[in-house]
């Protein structure tokens, strides 16, 4: 476009160029918009899949009626059990289980009454497992029984039905009696045009048996079955005796009669019969409750066959002056719901607690109950999760999930005298009833009950755990397990993996780029760069495989050498560089950069060899067990007679984090008693010696030190402090004392060495101070050693991201204008000063982007962490333990998650969190890069 002026007509841009121009512009714009749109669409889709997790459920009344009782004088029902489809229910009464229809033409019609009592006995008390399905009965002669109760249903073709039932309308039901079949108390329903279903009530009870010797009437009883099919039963009788029984039924897989093994203990009721009894499904605890909320807890653990089970804890579950209005187990029979007349109560379970009962456990109020209108009069736990329906004396009906504390739905029943509530076995129907036999049926759309912001991100107090915690354990073999859906351990794992990988990769990659772009000859660079880029093409699954089956075992075997390498290699590099300077310039200038690389290679080889030598030596110096530790390990100990001579921290028991402090003192603690190492004498001596010999108990071992088997915290702190203090000391020495050394290389080397030794001294002093303050690094960044650990993953994942960071950084540095380098060199700067103070800052934005792209890759890396770690969702800083990342979690669990379910959506939430993390990282990176760029543009 310089030909202006004399030329008559400017050469016109041809139409085709314009056309191409326009086309290119359009294509590029469209492409850009598509990318943006795609990212946005992914984001929207993730939100769309995740949103239902946090939405509420819905409840709606679908029908009501009143039980047409057989006799007006009959006692009111004490419990409700519905069928799976909300078509019928059992009205449980001690005299018998009344089967009632709930929908159809005659809601409330009684189909039949199944007798519970037999052989002249009468039922004095009964109990039902959460969600129904199994009941236990106590009789007036002291015997008990248990068995299954429920509705059996099957799908049939119309020709299997009586004539009259075939023309049933969709959504209606008809009793078999009305259809002309008098033999069965069942009914026919037609939920869909093409579907006929026949349902029948079923009750199957064992033969009554005696628990213990007493023949006094049973007044309180509870019965549970745990996941493995082990049954437990607790009874209290009128004569103030109680008993606890464990029943193991095993059915040989090869067929044949089941084997029943029953073990019975006495319950030490202390002459007071409780109002009600509760036994936890694991059989560990029996709770005896009275009407004012006072509870006695019996601990069955460790009680011998012929002993009575003692009370281990006594307390009240209610506030002063309140009356118990309702109580009952949740599914799994670990959590007891308790409600008081004054709105008090809560969800209680037994958790490990040192200051609790005499068995080191205590009842804790882990969750509150949702506040409804009035006091709860009945709870209806679900049969397949921790969902529960509660009915208040004011007729309010609330449905909530106890683990996630999520209120699903609430409504008003309008019942005048509310008495009972039940959730259907599938948790999609709620049946509320008043004591006069009136009932209302509600359809429930519960949604994703287990997920709430609290259960996904905050700490939750789970059953059997001492305190609220973040736990991820998404699936289980049975419904009774509490879902644990905290994403926090996964986010933690992702950050941990990324952090350690970047700590390894960034220095290596950026320094490599600096070297190759600034100091390497162009010919060599042409070879090295593609070679490094080739590393990026290694599939990460291969890297993961290598990490799991090659690197991890080797790293575990040669831990001390590996750690030594981290210290020795940089030192060898510095020594090598200093030695290079000692060679006269006329020689060094003549050799090419290829030869320099060979020298570096030799230096590295020397460094590795030195690490292999220094590793075991360092391990021997720092991590050799004392004689006492070896003796403790071999079991040569004696009880400490005088506990007052022990250090202060041991006085009120030893907490988990204080345990490490015992080892250096030659002490050990077992079950609250202290033992001191003792030198064996006589015959025992040889035995102990051979034990120490065979177990390598006196040999240095970093792994055993990490596991906390021996030693104080000092060597650990020393190693952690050594690098920073030594480097700092050398830098200070160079800055403030280099004039003393003058130009002499030897003096300079001596100064550096002296400073490094001084730094080590400071590190040792610091380590000693920290240890004497009672701090131990084994509780934070280092700790018990696991073969599949973060260190291994960090190294291998570092390998995966190094090529990317290297190649982009290298490009960025090479694109720094040559004029800047020339100016710097011309002004008298050395090539190193030029590289670090001119090239690196100018290329800063590029290097930073490189690191961020590497970071993005590390955050989302899946296969390496999937294969090289144990995928253990732990939350520890410890570099020697494993972790589970969000990405690996999705890969592991997606195949098992049913589409549209809670678990499936939780995995999408993992994806969304991951997406947000990378989005935030990339946006921040871009913002920072722009600032760098502005600064370097000003140059």
């Amino acid at each position: 476009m310089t030909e202006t002026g004399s030329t008559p007509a400017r050469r016109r841009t041809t139409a085709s160029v314009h056309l191409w121009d326009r086309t290119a512009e359009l294509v590029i714009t469209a492409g850009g918009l598509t990318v943006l749109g795609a990212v946005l669409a992914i984001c929207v889709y993730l939100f769309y899949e995740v949103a239902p997790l946090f939405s509420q459920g819905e409840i709606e009344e679908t029908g009501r009626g009143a039980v047409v009782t057989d006799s007006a004088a009959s006692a009111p029902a004490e419990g409700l059990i519905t069928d799976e489809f909300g078509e019928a229910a059992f009205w449980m009464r001690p005299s018998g289980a009344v089967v009632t229809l709930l929908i159809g033409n005659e809601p409330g019609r009684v189909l039949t009454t199944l007798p519970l009592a037999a052989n002249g006995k009468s039922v004095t008390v009964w109990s039902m497992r959460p969600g129904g399905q199994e009941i236990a009965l106590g009789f007036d002669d002291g015997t008990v029984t248990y068995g299954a109760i429920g509705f059996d249903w099957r799908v049939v073709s119309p020709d299997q039905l009586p004539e009259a039932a075939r023309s049933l309308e969709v959504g209606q039901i008809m009793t078999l009696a009305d259809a002309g079949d008098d033999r069965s108390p069942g009914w026919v329903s037609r939920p869909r045009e093409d579907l006929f279903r026949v349902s029948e009530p079923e009750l199957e009870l064992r033969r009554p048996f005696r628990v213990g010797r007493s023949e006094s009437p049973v007044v309180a009883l509870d019965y549970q079955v745990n996941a493995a099919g082990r049954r437990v039963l607790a009874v209290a009788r009128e004569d103030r005796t109680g008993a606890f029984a464990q029943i193991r039924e095993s059915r040989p897989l090869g067929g044949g009669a089941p084997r029943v093994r029953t073990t019975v203990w006495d319950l030490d009721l202390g002459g007071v019969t409780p109002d009600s009894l509760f036994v936890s499904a694991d059989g560990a605890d029996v709770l005896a409750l009275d009407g004012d909320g006072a509870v006695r807890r019996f601990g069955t653990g460790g009680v011998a066959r012929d002993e009575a089970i003692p009370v281990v804890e006594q307390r009240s579950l209610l506030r002063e002056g309140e009356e118990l209005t309702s109580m009952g187990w949740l599914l799994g029979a670990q959590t007891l719901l308790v409600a008081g007349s004054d709105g008090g109560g809560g969800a209680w379970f037994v958790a490990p607690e040192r200051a609790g009962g005499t068995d080191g456990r205590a009842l804790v109020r882990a969750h509150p109950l949702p506040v409804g209108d009035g006091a709860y009069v009945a709870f209806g736990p679900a049969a397949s999760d921790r969902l529960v329906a509660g009915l208040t004396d004011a007729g309010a009906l609330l449905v909530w999930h106890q683990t996630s504390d999520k209120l699903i739905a609430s409504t008003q029943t309008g019942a005048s005298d509310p008495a009972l509530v039940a959730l259907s076995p599938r948790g999609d129907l709620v049946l509320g009833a008043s004591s006069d036999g009136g009932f209302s049926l509600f359809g429930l759309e519960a949604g994703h009950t287990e997920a709430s912001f609290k259960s996904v991100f905050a700490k939750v107090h789970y059953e059997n755990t001492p305190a609220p915690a973040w736990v991820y354990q998404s699936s289980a073999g049975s419904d009774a397990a509490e879902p644990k859906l905290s994403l926090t351990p996964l986010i933690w794992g992702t950050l941990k993996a990324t952090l350690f990988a970047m700590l390894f990769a960034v220095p290596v990659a950026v320094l490599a780029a600096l070297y190759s772009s600034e100091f390497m000859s162009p010919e060599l660079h042409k070879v090295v760069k593609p070679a490094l880029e080739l590393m990026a093409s290694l599939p990460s699954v291969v890297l993961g495989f290598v990490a799991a089956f090659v690197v991890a075992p080797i790293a575990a075997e040669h831990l001390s050498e590996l750690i030594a390498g981290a210290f020795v290699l940089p030192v060898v590099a510095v020594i090598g560089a200093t030695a290079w300077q000692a060679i006269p310039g006329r020689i060094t200038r003549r050799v090419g950069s290829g030869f320099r690389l060979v020298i570096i290679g030799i230096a590295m080889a020397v460094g590795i060899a030195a690490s292999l030598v220094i590793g075991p030596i360092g391990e021997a110096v720092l991590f050799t067990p004392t004689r006492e530790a070896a003796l403790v390990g071999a079991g040569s100990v004696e009880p400490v007679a005088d506990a007052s001579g022990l250090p202060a921290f041991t006085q009120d028991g030893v907490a988990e984090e204080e345990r490490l402090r015992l080892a250096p003192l030659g002490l050990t603690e077992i079950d609250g008693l202290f033992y001191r190492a003792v030198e064996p004498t006589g015959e025992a001596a040889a035995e102990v010696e051979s034990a120490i010999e065979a177990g390598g108990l006196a040999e240095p071992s970093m792994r055993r030190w990490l596991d906390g088997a021996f030693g104080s915290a000092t060597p650990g702190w020393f190693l952690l402090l050594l690098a920073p203090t030594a480097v700092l000391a050398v830098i200070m020495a160079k800055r403030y004392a280099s004039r003393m050394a003058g130009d002499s290389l030897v003096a300079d080397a001596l100064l550096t060495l002296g400073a490094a030794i001084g730094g080590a001294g400071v590190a040792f002093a610091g380590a000693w101070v920290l240890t004497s303050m009672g701090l131990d690094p084994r509780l934070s960044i280092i700790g018990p050693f696991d073969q599949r650990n973060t260190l291994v993953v960090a190294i291998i994942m570092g390998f995966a991201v190094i090529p990317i960071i290297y190649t982009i950084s290298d490009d960025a540095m090479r694109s720094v204008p040559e004029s800047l380098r020339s100016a710097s060199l011309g002004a008298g700067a050395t090539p190193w000063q030029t590289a670090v103070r001119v090239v690196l800052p100018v290329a800063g934005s590029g290097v930073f982007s490189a690191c961020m792209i590497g970071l993005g890759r590390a955050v989302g890396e899946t296969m390496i962490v999937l294969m090289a770690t144990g995928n253990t969702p732990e939350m520890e800083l410890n570099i020697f333990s494993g972790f589970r990342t969000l990405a690996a979690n999705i890969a592991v669990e997606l195949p098992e998650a049913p589409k549209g379910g809670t678990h499936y959506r939780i995995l999408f939430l993992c994806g969304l969190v991951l997406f947000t993390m990378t989005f935030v990282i990339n946006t921040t990176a871009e913002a920072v890069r722009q600032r760098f760029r502005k600064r370097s543009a000003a140059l």
Partner: protein
Amino acid sequence: MNPLMRLCLGVVLAGGFMTGDARAQSLDPDLPVYEAAAGVDGTIKSIGSDTMNNLMTGWGDDFRAFYPAVKVEVEGKGSSTAPPALIQNQANFGPMSRPMKGKEIDAFQKQFGYEPTLLSTGIDALAVFVHKDCPLDEISLDDLEQVFSVNGPDMTWADLGVSDPAWRNEPISLYGRNSASGTYGFFKDNALAGSDFKSSVKEQAGSGGVIQAVGNERFAMGYSGIGYATANVKALRVSLDGIDAFEPTAENSLSGDYPLARFLFVYINKDPRQALDPLREQFIRLIFSRRGQDTVLKFNYIPVPADIAREQLEKLGLEPGF
């Protein structure tokens, strides 16, 4: 059987481990000899248990010996993958090493109106494996719970009564299956009494992975189906009460003495209003024939007695004929 599978099996047999015991248990003589039928065509598509992966493949190979035109596809990522596959009609067989959970059955019922049909096709002894050099020989269920459950403390081998000084102070390194697997669920229910696993249990994606990891690490312990045992590992005897410990053999599993024995299930979607199609009927007949149960033996699982086989066929409305 493909060459790789043959090789794996060869390794297992060469290891000589457990094979003697499992092989000693012969087939129930009442099981019928399989006879080919006419009109069998289509694709056998199985999605589910990883434990039963080789078994399904084995039956598939047997089946193709009779019906070369039939295609067999077997996918085994874990028992939990079977219910979704059956519900979405992606598979016509859903092998599972645990029974379906209530919610899984509910989801199936919601879709089809009826429940899936459960067939007990074989028996597996779930074994607790340690490194072959491990001095420990037996373990009680209570100890097993302490070792793997979150309720138990971190344990060393001394806590299990190992006195060998080279072992006693070493922590036990734990391996297990991923949560999708039925093995995970079964072990959780039966060995841990339903409580959670320690978060330090390293989850492996396959049964073979557990064995390999345990064989590679001296102080490791893991659980897996007995069929995957190699020469580098040893299966512990397990006791219910700490007194009588039993080996995971066929005899002990059938008698109920070995506490961690379980059925290997195959779920199918059978409409109770219609007869089964010939493809599935013949495949199921093959499973419960001498040939099918011999395949069960071949993979070191335990065949079902004829009584159970008969029960399964009757469940589907098929005439057992034996």
